[in-house]
């Protein structure tokens, strides 16, 4: 558009320059014409004179020659000659009529001329005596005009020829400029398109508005979706934000405030005052939560535009809510575990039994309306007891459900039965579900039959804080760590064997050192305690009864007090207990003899066995080196039972006997078989 105007202006300029040149040329021609007229005047005088002379000498032929020469002059229009001798009036050319102006001219110079009827009077000339002819010369103005026109055309042509290339060059330059302009326009359009594509691919709804409050047309396609607006350029804030007049007024007020340089400098701080920072977009389907942020676009230190960035945070909020819910669930679960592990089993059993009875009574109430006052009193008492006990045992969730049920009863008694009925059922079901959950955890924790978990309190607190701080979110990992918490120091596990040892020492007054636990701080999971417990118990008893010699024997051998050592080790795959004593070890010969005696093998078979094979005989069913079971060595459980139990778990039992010096028994169990 602009280029066209430019071309038009330049075209007009060219035309006016050309016209001006033509006008100037015309004016200069007019001057030429004026000078020619003057010349003509002079020529008339001159011609008259010449003819007088020519004719007076009687050389008429000369006159004719002169005339024909004169006729060749483009200025010559015609002539009239009077021949006094023959009284003839000649006109050249024959039809030449004297123009009145010329006649006037001639008269002023002294003659009288009558044109048309050829009656010519030349008194003035005759007065001069010798004049025999008179010539009137007329100049053709037409020819001059023709010439002037010609000159004009030539000037215009020359001007045109000079101006044409200039015009062409200008036109070319203009075209070139226009082309460049168009290229730039295209490039700009391309960039705009790229921006648009970019905008449209953003997950954020973006549009901009100016501080005066006008919304700009450009926006991301997501913005259309989030705000439900198709035409941003003509949209108002109340349409875009779908909000009431007051909020928009506040928004405008905020806009005016942040447009000032002082507040602009701390945009993020003052953005907090924006009244529209979150929207609920109804749209189609479920409502979406949209957060809106505002970013300033600053040019030359002043606010040029404000960019609106809107994001749909519905999913995020839901995920957060779900995460919080699952976190709450985990915490409740932890609280249940803690309550269970903190209280001894018998009182817990009592509490849970009573709680179940209360719950069962709740179930017998079918309709809240039909409940008598006495029943209400009972119910309230039940719930109150339940609430109090749950609180003292640390079952906070159970406590709060009981509390809510009490509230429901209070409402019902105030006569709000109708709307409370559903709530009653809901809370009652929740109470039953919570009891089930507690029961489930209890079963998990007490499956091993221990009265009280030896849970590592510090480890538990650490785990709880990790869960609360979201450092630990994987439930499987939480379960694993929970599982790990159900462990105790190996020294604690070994206390029971120490008691056996002490009992033996007291009864037999034997010189035996305390049980030496080599790995007291190594933690052992309750599951492995269960796996190893009976076996270790048996091995300790064996060591006391058969391994460690009587005091007198030891003294004779110059051996110190008896000693039993125990160690527990875990690798990634296995759990291992090593029990050793400094007794007499296993005598292969003695073992073989007993085996033959008890008809486990024949004498021949025994003779054929190697030392190790003979030692292995202690694992045979029916082998027992002592005739009677006593208080220490147990109730007829032999080494075969130990091996059977360990092998049940896919484990192994290894003996390392040094005759006269002691025996080391190693029990190894693969972890995965247990867990």
């Amino acid at each position, binding site marked *: 558009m602009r280029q066209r105007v430019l071309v038009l202006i330049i075209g007009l300029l060219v035309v006016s320059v050309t016209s001006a040149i033509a006008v100037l040329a015309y004016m200069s021609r007019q001057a030429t014409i004026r000078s020619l007229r003057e010349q003509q005047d002079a020529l008339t005088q001159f011609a008259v004179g010449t003819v007088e002379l020519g004719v007076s000498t009687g050389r008429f032929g000369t006159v004719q020659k002169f005339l024909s020469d004169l006729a060749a002059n483009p200025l010559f229009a015609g002539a009239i000659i009077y021949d006094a001798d023959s009284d003839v009036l000649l006109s050249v050319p024959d039809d030449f009529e004297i123009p009145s102006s010329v006649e006037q001219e001639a008269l002023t110079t002294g003659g009288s001329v009558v044109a048309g009827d050829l009656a010519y009077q030349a008194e003035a000339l005759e007065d001069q005596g010798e004049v025999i002819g008179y010539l009137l010369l007329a100049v053709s103005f037409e020819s001059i005009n023709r010439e002037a026109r010609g000159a004009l055309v030539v000037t215009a042509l020359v001007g045109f020829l000079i101006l044409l290339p200039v015009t062409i060059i200008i036109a070319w330059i203009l075209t070139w400029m226009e082309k460049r302009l168009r290229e730039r326009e295209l490039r700009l359009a391309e960039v705009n398109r790229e921006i648009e594509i970019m905008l449209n691919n953003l997950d954020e709804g973006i549009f901009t508005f100016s501080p005066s409050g006008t919304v700009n047309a450009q926006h991301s396609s997501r913005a259309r979706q989030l705000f439900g607006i198709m035409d941003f350029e003509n949209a108002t804030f109340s349409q875009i934000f779908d909000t009431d007049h007051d909020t928009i007024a*506040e928004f405008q*007020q*905020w806009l005016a*405030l942040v447009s000032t340089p*002082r507040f602009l400098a701390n945009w993020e*701080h003052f953005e907090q*005052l*924006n009244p529209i920072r979150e929207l609920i977009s109804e749209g189609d389907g479920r409502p979406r939560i949209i957060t809106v942020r505002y970013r300033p676009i600053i040019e030359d230190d002043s606010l040029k535009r404000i960019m609106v960035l809107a994001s749909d945070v519905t999913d995020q909020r839901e995920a957060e809510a779900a995460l919080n819910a699952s976190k709450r669930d985990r915490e409740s679960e932890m609280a249940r575990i803690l309550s269970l592990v903190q209280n001894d089993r018998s009182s817990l059993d009592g509490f849970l039994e009573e709680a179940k009875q209360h719950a069962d009574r709740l179930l017998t109430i079918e309709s809240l309306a039909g409940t008598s006052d006495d029943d209400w009193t009972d119910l309230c008492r039940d719930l109150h007891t339940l609430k109090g006990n749950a609180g003292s045992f640390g079952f906070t969730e159970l406590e709060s459900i009981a509390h809510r049920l009490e509230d429901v009863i209070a409402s019902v008694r105030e006569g709000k039965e109708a709307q409370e009925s559903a709530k009653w059922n809901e809370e009652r079901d929740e109470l039953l579900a919570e009891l089930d959950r507690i029961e489930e955890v209890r079963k998990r924790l007490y499956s091993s039959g221990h009265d009280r978990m030896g849970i590592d309190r510090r480890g538990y607190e650490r785990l709880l804080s990790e869960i609360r701080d979201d450092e630990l979110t994987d439930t499987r990992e939480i379960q694993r760590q929970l599982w790990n918490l159900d462990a105790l120091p190996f020294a604690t596990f070994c206390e029971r064997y120490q008691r056996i040892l002490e009992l033996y020492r007291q009864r037999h007054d034997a010189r035996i050192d305390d049980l030496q636990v080599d790995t007291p701080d190594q933690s052992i999971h309750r599951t492995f305690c269960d796996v190893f417990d009976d076996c270790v118990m048996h091995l300790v008893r064996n060591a006391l009864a058969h391994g460690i010699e009587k005091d007198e024997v030891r003294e004779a051998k110059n051996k110190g007090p008896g000693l039993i050592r125990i160690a527990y080790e875990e690798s990634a795959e296995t759990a291992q207990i090593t029990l050793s004593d400094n007794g007499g070890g296993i005598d292969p010969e003695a073992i073989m003899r007993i085996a033959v005696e008890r008809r486990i093998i024949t004498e021949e078979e025994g003779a054929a066995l190697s030392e190790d094979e003979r030692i292995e005989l202690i694992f045979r069913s029916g082998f027992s080196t002592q005739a009677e079971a006593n208080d220490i060595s147990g109730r007829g459980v032999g080494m075969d039972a130990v091996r059977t139990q360990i092998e049940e778990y896919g484990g192994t039992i290894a003996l390392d006997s040094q005759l006269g010096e002691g025996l080391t028994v190693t029990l190894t169990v693969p972890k995965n078989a247990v867990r």
Partner: protein
Amino acid sequence: MAHKILVCDDSMFMRQKIKQALQDAGYEVVGEAETGVEAIAKYQELAPDLVTMDVVMPEMSGVDAVHEIMRGDAEACIVMCSALAQKKLVTDALQAGARDFVVKPFDDSQLLSAVERALQ
């Protein structure tokens, strides 16, 4: 020389908290006011360099007090202390000439940066 500050809040706890934070940062708290009316009187009397102004106070609101103080002293430097729900009132106060704001509950650093910005 330490800037002189007037603390206006109807809650004694809040006044104490603000005062402590300001004094710890080296400001001089020259006075305290419990109402908007008191704030105006104390402002005229003490001519402090800065005022911290609660939005909701008995007798006269913080916003009205800002109007009144600004009318007497166009150069007055006021920082609003508000709850989150009082956006509109804070905006009004800023429009009336208050320089900055801080949202309760705030920690000391938030208060101090608002005060520093306002004093610039």
